[in-house]
């Protein structure tokens, strides 16, 4: 029974962090956008405009929910949920502390699900999330939406391969596909983290993750200038809000995964700093990567669709395979 209570606490904690961060992330995104574009961003609601997101949320909730007459209504309504539910599931796999910690006399794993094939599960759930966008595009019965959905489908399929192959290098080094063991493999100071030996994999994974998240400069599905708003064109009110919400939740999750795989997860950069709880470190790393995503989004112009495909297939895929081959050779030599 206590196990169950702890599980519940961990789950609520993670969901609260994931959901609770979103309004502030949106606020920061807008503030950063203002900074990069030499404007001030939101200022009106609350001190420095910090309550802007809550105002937006109230607006979205009170707006009329328009479903187009010719849309496929069931799929139209289902699609936003498909997008963000897998994101929450991935959160369950991310460890935020060591296994078997003593808390009030109970042995507790500081991860919701210490899943054997966790890192692959992350890929699998990511591949499910794409249906949200693809079917949203299809169900809207709108040319721009359909194009957006199609582009997103192709984009996901292309980048998932490079991403998966980049991950295999990590698996080889950690000798495991379990997130907790991958973090254990990076024990010690920050030069033991995998982003140094696996720098190629990190670059591939990080850039691919931008494509997976559908953010600029790979934001071809939404592509405001060409496709109105891509798959979201026909959505309004809170359903549209759910897409936005899903985007930010997925960003949090993706940052957490990158932190776990390449930057030691919950571990401190120096063992001397271990007294600060792992959870804090993880959140810090997550915020850092979210900042990177925002920085990139407001700095770089969007790639053309065919350029996106070229990068995925002609550069990242061969590079990822080369990285895998080199890693495999080195790991097998070192292990002998």
């Amino acid at each position: 029974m206590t196990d169950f209570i702890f599980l519940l606490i961990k789950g609520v904690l993670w969901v609260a962090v994931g959901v609770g961060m979103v309004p502030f992330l949106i606020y920061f995104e807008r503030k950063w956008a203002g900074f990069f574009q030499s404007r001030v961003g939101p200022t009106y609601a609350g001190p420095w405009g910090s309550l802007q997101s809550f105002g937006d949320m109230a607006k979205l909730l009170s707006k009329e929910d328009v479903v187009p007459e010719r849309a496929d209504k069931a799929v139209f309504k289902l699609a936003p949920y498909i997008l963000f539910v897998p994101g929450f599931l991935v959160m369950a796999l991310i460890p935020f502390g060591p296994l078997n910690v003593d808390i009030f006399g109970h042995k507790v794993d500081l991860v919701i699900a210490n899943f054997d094939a966790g890192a692959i599960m992350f890929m699998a759930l990511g591949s499910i999330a794409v249906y949200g966008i693809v079917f949203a595009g299809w169900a809207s019965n709108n040319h721009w939406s359909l194009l957006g959905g199609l582009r997103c489908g192709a984009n996901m399929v292309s980048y998932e391969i490079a991403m998966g192959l980049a991950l295999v290098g990590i698996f080889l080094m950690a000798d495991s596909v379990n997130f907790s063991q991958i973090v254990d493999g990076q024990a010690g100071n920050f030069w033991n983290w995998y982003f140094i030996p696996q720098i190629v994999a990190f670059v591939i994974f990080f850039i691919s993750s931008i494509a997976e998240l559908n953010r600029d400069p790979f934001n071809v599905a939404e592509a405001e200038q060409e496709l109105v708003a891509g798959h979201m064109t026909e959505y309004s009110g809170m359903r549209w809000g759910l897409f936005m919400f899903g985007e930010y939740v997925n960003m949090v999750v993706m940052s957490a995964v990158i932190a776990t795989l390449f930057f030691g997860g919950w571990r401190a950069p120096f063992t001397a700093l271990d007294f600060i709880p792992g959870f804090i470190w993880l959140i810090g790393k997550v915020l850092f990567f979210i900042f990177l995503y925002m920085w990139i989004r407001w700095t770089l112009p969007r790639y053309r669709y065919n350029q996106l495909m070229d990068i995925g297939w002609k550069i990242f895929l061969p590079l990822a395979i080369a990285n895998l081959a080199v890693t495999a050779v080195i790991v097998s030599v070192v292990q002998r």
Partner: protein
Amino acid sequence: MAEKILFIIFASLAVLGALGVITRTNIVHGLLLLVFTFVNVAAVFLLTQAYFLAVIQVLVYAGAILVLFAFVVMFLNLKEFHQLEQLHGTQKWAVLVLAPILLAEIVVVVAGATWTSVGAGITPDAIAAQGGNVRVLGITLFNEMLLPFEMASLILLVGMVGAIVLAKKEDGASMALRDWTGDEEAAQAVVEQEV
């Protein structure tokens, strides 16, 4: 007991989903239900502690393959499945009689058969002792199953070569007559000639 209940739930959801796939006339609904079916099958795999298989089921089937299906459906803009005119209309009725008989036959025979379990000695603890599900599967795959594994990679190579051979654009091939002469009749004659 809990596992049994969960199995019944997921298995029946999978069967219902599969039934939905073949009865929907809207192809995209069928596709969504197929994803649903695959996810439920993955859940059944999870219940048998085949974690890796479950994940791969979602990643490969529900994820990669069906996204391509969705892609094709959208490219061709298929909305509804229109039933083709049946050439052998009476066969429909023969199917109605014969298929249940075959099903009943298979059910009766299979229910009465004696099965040999290969699970003896393979317990979750034993697998955990050998380093977990993924490791045990990997070791099996690259030792006992090495030859079929490599053969499967050859099949994939053949698939890729075939896709290129069948789809690559060719310049000036006489068979692509239609493209450069515009003579529809001559082109049709070439298309239909004996090879």
